[in-house]
């Protein structure tokens, strides 16, 4: 069976080495841009991993993850600005709210497959966006500004350096990798893959399709919302146009697919490649206003889809097999 992860000693030692390098990175670089870039890489990697749980593993291709991202960001920010709730608690609250929203949308969509599910997810995310855009309680179109406080871990806010944000996001990423890995190797992962292969066969075999799909959606939503809270505490301002829009959802899917959907590490690789490309082309080419950077981006997506749909991870596995 493909895609069942096992961790060889070699993989573990490579991972450890990479982890050490990542931990030292903030000490080695100068300037805010390299740090910002890596933080974005970690954030999108986490979003991609979260997507993978329902997309890569369970075959539910969600193009509406921005809804959960936004729900997470808004929940913690609203609780903070209106009721002075600590953002870490807000983080958990956001995750719960997102998971509940996922359950809510999961019920009608649990029977949808493939392209139908994709469109339903887009429709759902757009409804959330439009509603938040008009909902005065949470700021509507003006959004929410996180008031500046003294920097501390407790207040989840740092001004003098990006390093704390870097380490926190890295921690979140490792957490989500752990969750994904657990899902993949557990019985749930086994069932999800069976459901992905064939919905009907799985049902006949007695697998509670709905229950496992719902679980996958909810876990995915929870993690995505966590990243949303991080975003809010990092940028200190959010409005529907910055957290609830379709391009964010699309970028999450691209990160997962480019890296390799259905593999634990895939999205990490995907983010590590896609984010620098999109940020660097914007910085170097964007200011001319010609759209060249996005043309390159679009071409890249087409090439990956056609020639390497299994993503980089798939490519590595192919090479690995060839070398055996």
């Amino acid at each position, binding site marked *: 069976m493909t895609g069942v992860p096992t961790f060889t000693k070699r993989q573990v030692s490579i991972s450890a080495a990479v982890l050490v390098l990542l931990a030292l990175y903030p000490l080695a670089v100068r*300037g805010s841009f390299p740090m910002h870039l890596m933080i974005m890489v970690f954030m999108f990697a986490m979003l991609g991993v979260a997507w993978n749980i329902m997309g890569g593993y369970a075959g539910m291709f969600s193009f509406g993850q921005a809804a959960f991202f936004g729900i997470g960001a808004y929940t913690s920010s609203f609780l903070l600005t209106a009721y002075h709730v600590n953002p870490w608690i807000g983080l958990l609250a956001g995750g719960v709210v997102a998971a509940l929203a996922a359950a809510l949308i999961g019920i009608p969509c649990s029977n949808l497959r493939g392209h139908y599910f994709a469109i339903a997810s887009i429709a759902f995310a757009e409804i959330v966006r439009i509603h938040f*855009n008009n909902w005065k309680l949470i700021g509507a*179109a*003006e959004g929410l500004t996180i008031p500046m406080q003294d920097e501390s871990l407790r207040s989840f806010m740092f001004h003098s350096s990006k390093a704390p944000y870097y380490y926190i996001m890295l921690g979140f990423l490792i957490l989500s990798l752990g969750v994904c890995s657990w899902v993949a190797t557990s019985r749930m992962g086994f069932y999800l893959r069976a459901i992905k292969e064939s919905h009907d066969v799985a049902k006949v075999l007695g697998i509670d399709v709905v229950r496992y799909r719902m679980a996958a959606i909810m876990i995915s939503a929870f993690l995505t919302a966590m990243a949303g809270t991080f975003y809010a505490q990092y*940028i200190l301002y959010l*409005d529907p146009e*910055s957290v609830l829009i379709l391009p964010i959802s699309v970028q999450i899917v691209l990160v997962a697919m480019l890296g390799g959907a259905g593999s634990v590490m895939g999205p990490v690789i995907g983010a590590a490649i896609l984010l620098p490309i999109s940020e660097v082309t*914007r910085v170097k080419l964007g200011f001319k206003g*010609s759209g060249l950077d996005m043309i390159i981006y679009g071409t890249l997506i087409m090439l990956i889809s056609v020639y390497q749909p299994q993503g980089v991870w798939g490519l590595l596995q192919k090479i690995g097999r060839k070398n055996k």
Partner: protein
Amino acid sequence: MGNLTRRKLLIGGGALALSPLVVSRAFAQGKTIKIGALYPLTGNLASTGLDNKRGVELAVDIINGKYDLNLPLARTQGIPGLGGAKLEVVWADTKGEPKNGQAEAERVVTQDQVVGVIGAYQSSVTKTASQATERLKVPYVCSDSSSPNLTERGLRYFFRVSPHDGIFSHDQFRFLKDLETQKKQKVQTLGVLYENTEFGSNVGKEELKYAQEFGYKVVADVSYANNATDVTSEVGRLIKANPDVLLHASYITDAILFTKTFKEMGFNPKGMLTMAGYIEPGYLPAIKADGNFIIVRSTFALDLAKKKPLVGQVAGLFKKKYGIDFSENAARSFMAPFVLAEAISRAKSTQAEAIVKALRETNIPGDQVIYPWKGIQFDPKTQQNVHATGTLVQIQDQQYVTVWPFESAAKDVVWPFPAWKSRK
């Protein structure tokens, strides 16, 4: 005696010859002073961003070159307080996203070492960019974002030169009152229409507030998505409510769509007071004569040249350099480089604290700006230019004509709005 004199002369002359080197070495940056400019150069608002860019580029040209214009630093080359150092712009593309506003502000400050930042047109992007510069303690001079709350955050490094939407909304109501008292045209009911992103909803909020203050009845309060495929429902509601005057805050795409739909469905209020989209350079070429008689808020209008020759001179330079008319967006972004450079020059320093102190003491007289303001002076608390006001222009014969304040009007306002069917 003659020998001493010659030696003194030689030493004096040598010292004089070397002094520029000494002077310039005192300023770590050497011969150029960098400022960061953040604008949406790609993405949905790219056409506006490029317009802003033109305004900034012209300003920097004037500052760096020698021009016989009554603008700060125009008659000298570069920044006189720093020995004529030239101003250099580091461009940053925000793509219209707030998170890029933050990232790009940080990048130009930490990596390119700019001494100040200008931009970013969209208020939501300016919000995050100026938060970043506040954290980094670098001055930010904004002359093109209009959200009122930008200067209500208590930031100490952020300055706004141009009017905000609260001022513009207030203008609209002062106009309606003036219309009643001076032109004997009474207005009782209002329709408030606005696109539903940050810009529009802020304006809507301000207008509803002033409507209450001034005692007008709001019979329609309609917000909509600015990329709507069709606005039949919105216009239908307006027709049903039948307001005397329509207040509309929009971007250019919805301005075009609404104008066409107003004509098509026969919506004929007594007057239309609009913002933003209707004064974008692309609006009139697209809508042509159907734009006539619509009133738009403006910081700038080409016919100001009649009362202020400086405007005509600058507009002429712009037209020569770019081949198109000096637009309101370009005119807005035009001023920020002057304010920042003038402060740097007065501070005679590239240190942030010195520049900020100089900014707070800014006092540029009214005849040195291209708008009908009394000048540029920042409120000590909010750091908003206290003299920033708007004007109202009306489209007549497909030109923007200043019609209010009535004292500085170039032509009389046409009121009421001639019904669509009655026009040729």
